[in-house]
Each structure stands twice: as C-alpha cells, then as structure tokens.
C-alpha cells in the first residue's frame, strides 16, 4: 500500500511568533522554520507502517516556497521514499490546499493519507477533513493509534472526555494527534541517503486549481496582554483576597 503524507513548513515550534508592526502578519524573516510538529508525527507513523510491512511506499507532498524542499528532505531522511513539491510563494488557504492535495492523490492513488491534525501557524485544523470530503473518503481525525487490517484501518481518536475507536474502509484520511508517537531523529547515514531521493517540483498551474481565495486577512494583531498581579505571602492571604477582593470563591 502506498501512503501519502502532506507536510507543511512552518515557524519552528520553539520560536515565539511576533506580529509585524504593520499588522500584515507574523514576522517570518530570519526566523527558524521547521516541519509542522503534527506533520512530523504523521511522517513517523507512515515510516512505522512501512517498517511493519503495512505500507510499501511513502510519498511526501508539500505546498509552499522552494525552501519547503528542506521540509520534504527532512521527511525523506526519516524514511519516506520520494517527494512532491507544489511550489508557490502565495499563502494557500486550507480549502485550496485540500483541492491541490486531491489532485495529487488522484494521480498517486495512495491507500491511505496520513497527515497532521493542524498546522501550528494558522491553527485551522481543517485540511484533513476537507480533503476526505472532496475525495468522498472516510475520515478519522485526532488519531492516537492507527492499525491497518487488510482493506481497513482501525483508528483510536482523542475526543473530549476520552477516546473513540472507529474502523474505516481504505482508502481513508487519518489525521495525527500529539500522542500518536514520538518522531525519530534522522540518523546521519539516512540524511545522506535522503539527498539522493527524488523530489518532483511542480507548479500550482499543473493541477488546475484556482487560488482566488475565499478569505482575506484584514489584519493580524497582538492578543490583549495580561499584566502580572501581586504576590501573596501565604495561603491565608490568598484565600482572603480571592474571597473579598476578587469575589470568586
């Protein structure tokens, strides 16, 4: 079975996002960029499926600037087999990302799409669900366990209050939550090997998807700041303040 893993290049999760003074967005100049952490978990899961013999080829797809090749290369070093970059310098909305991925999938015909539940920049949590809708495939989001069983996949999902387990007919779209696995660090020999793996560089125009956009970002601002309050000396003073000053107990 072929597994397709879409990945996104985002600001590194350890870097604090700073709003540009002109309020047009978040400053990405000279900021460390990495693979979105949830995408990394999806790549790891795909590699584990291959190691278990449940998958035989892993194709990684990214949509973004030419530098997104580095993100694909990271996935190849983790164990993916080849990459496809849809090169564009414009911000692509989730719905259009889903349409572009659908076009890739119709060509590649994977048995399973494994992807992150959300990207940590836009925090939309939408592409996986939209992709499965466009393909009319079943979906399982927020996966914490994925088991392939012939033509089916059993997925345990993290939901409010606990876990839900579903069984989907393949092909299907599964989105990864935090606790699905802990991604590996690529070894030096694998990083070297990844340099020889193939990345197809394509253009949005190759897929016939209109990027006109449905959403317009009017401005990006800092959230309201909370200021530090007071330090109390002991628990008794704390309770007194909560009771009389704040009135919350």
């Amino acid at each position: 079975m072929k597994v397709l893993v879409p990945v996104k290049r985002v600001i590194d999760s350890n870097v604090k996002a700073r709003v540009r003074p002109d309020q047009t967005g978040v400053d990405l100049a000279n900021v460390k960029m990495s693979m979105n952490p949830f995408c990394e978990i999806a790549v790891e899961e795909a590699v584990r499926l291959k190691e278990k013999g449940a998958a035989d080829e892993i194709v990684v797809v990214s949509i973004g600037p030419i530098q997104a090749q580095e993100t694909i290369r990271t996935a190849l070093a983790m164990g993916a087999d080849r990459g496809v970059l849809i090169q564009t310098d414009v911000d692509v909305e989730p719905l259009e990302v889903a349409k572009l991925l659908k076009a890739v999938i119709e060509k590649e015909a994977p048995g399973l799409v494994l992807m992150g539940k959300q990207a940590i920049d836009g925090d939309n949590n939408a592409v996986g669900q939209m992709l499965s809708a466009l393909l009319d495939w079943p979906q399982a989001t927020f996966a914490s366990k994925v088991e392939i069983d012939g033509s089916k996949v059993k997925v345990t999902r993290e939901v409010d209050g606990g876990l839900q387990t579903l069984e989907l007919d393949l092909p299907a779209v599964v989105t990864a939550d935090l606790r699905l696995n802990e991604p590996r660090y690529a070894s030096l020999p694998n990083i070297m090997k990844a340099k020889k793996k193939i990345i197809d560089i394509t253009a949005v125009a190759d897929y016939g998807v209109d990027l006109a956009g449905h959403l317009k970002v009017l401005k990006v601002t800092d959230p309201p700041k909370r200021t530090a309050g007071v330090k109390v000396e002991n628990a008794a003073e704390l309770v007194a303040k909560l009771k009389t000053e704040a009135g919350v107990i």
Partner: protein
Amino acid sequence: MAVLVIADHDNASLKDSTHKTVTAAKALSGDVDVLIAGQGVDGVAAEAAKIEGVRKVLVATSDALGQHIAEAITAAVLPLAPSYDAILVPATSVGKNFAPRLAAKLDVAPISEIVEIVSPDTFVRPIYAGNALETVQSSDAKKVITVRATAFKAAGEGGSAPIEQIAAGDGAPKTRFVSDEIVKSDRPELAGAKIVVSGGRAMGSAEEFHRVIEPLADKLGAAVGASRAAVDAGYAPNDYQVGQTGKVVAPQLYIAIGISGAIQHLAGMKDSKVIVAINKDSDAPIFQVADYGLVSDYKTAVPELMDALTAAGK
C-alpha cells in the same frame, strides 16, 4: 439571514458550549435554529428548545449520529444548508471534526475557532497558539464557522421553541463505530467549569497528582486540569490537558499548581477571569499572567490552602 447552530451534546444532555454558540449566532441574525444530531436525544432537544432566542429546534436521529461520526453529521446537515446563510458549530472535538468536512462539501472556506464577530462577514480568530489574532473577512455567501465557546457568554433560558424531526441522511457507509472510552466523573466538565485547579510536572507522579490536586478541586467544586508536561509524563489523563493542543478554558478562577507556564499552556487559560499561580520558582513565567502569585512549594502551600479554605467556610 438565518443561522443554524449545530448543538454539542452527549445524547443525554446539552453542553453549555451550545448556549454560547447561540449567543454568537444571535450576533449574526435574529433567526437562529438549533440542530440536534444524535440518538435518543428527546431530553437534549427539550433543553435546546428552552434557550432564549431560538426559533426552532431540528432533530435528526440515527446510530451514526449518536456516535458523532463526521460523515453522518455532514450528510444530515447538507440538505439543510440552502436554508441558512451561516452554520455555527461549537469548536469541540465533535464540531472540529465535522465542520471542515461540511464546508468542503459546500465549497466554502471554514473559519475556525472565532473569538469575536466584527461584522456578518468579518471575524477574529487566534493563530500561532494564541500568540496573534487574525481578523479575517470571508467572501463566501454561506459561512461555516466553529466558535470558541469560552469567548462568548451563554444564552439564557426562557424560550419555548418548537421541535421538528428531520431526515437523518445517508449515515457513514465507509465508517464503523468500534468503541468509546469516556471517563465518567462527578466533577464539572473542564471546558465549562467555573473553577479549574490544574497541576503540572512538579507533581512528579500520578499518585501525587491525585493526592494533591483532586482534593483541592473537590473542595472548590472545581474541574481538574493539567499541563501538557504533566500529561506527557503520564501523571494525568490526556483529556485533562489545558493548552493550545488540549482544551481552552476561561473559568472565573484558574489555579495553576506547579505549572511553569509554557506559551502552549498559557494559550489555553490566559482568558480566565482570575489566575492564581503556586510555584516554588519565583521566576516561573506563570507569574507574569497570574493575578495572585504564591511563591511556595506546593507540598506546603496546598495543605495550607486547604486549611485556609476550611477556615473560610469552604
């Protein structure tokens, strides 16, 4: 224009996030309908009918809807879509699961986790784990929106909307429900609790977490939360996690015990009305957002706090 709110519920009772989403819907339109998609939901529908300002309550029932399967909910809602200009969904694990699927079927761009309505086509939503707020304008004639419930007040009671049965749709032919493991608790639900007591990595073990955090929570009638570090270390279950990747809470009182205050965690609780931090490290970032800080080891501070609460009649 008319707005459809798709209710969050567990088939037994309506979740407060529904009332809050109705408030958001009322900011868009005077004609707000509520859909209950589930199984055995007569009680839930009756609760929804009482929400003030609701025009009518629609009820769709099937096993797959009762199991909150995204494909089934989407199939039930699609035939209703032509009657509405906006579909609002609480941003819970169920809502976040089906809303983008519904949007894609309607060829519209979903707008995730709005915290403010600027105008009928313009919304504010957090991005970058709440480190920035994006004001976004939609050109879609029909809008599919998930609502961060903590940002809106709950709609009141006192309505008596009519209840109408509708078709359940095609279900989810390619998806089968296997099992649920839902943790039953007598404590209030984390997302809607008035008081939340959260523990961090400082607890050191699951036993210590139970021993320290839970009695304090029970004394205050509070929900129990945890930092991601505490959850990752196995001290607390996954669904206790407060933060960008867990639950976003905004209670009247949030008490953080042994939590340093990583950005990730702050994104999930910084809209709480009053924040209390107890931490032995006076430089912990949590103190920068806390209204009341107590620099002390939780091992001495929490027993003292229990005693002080008892003395104060709690």
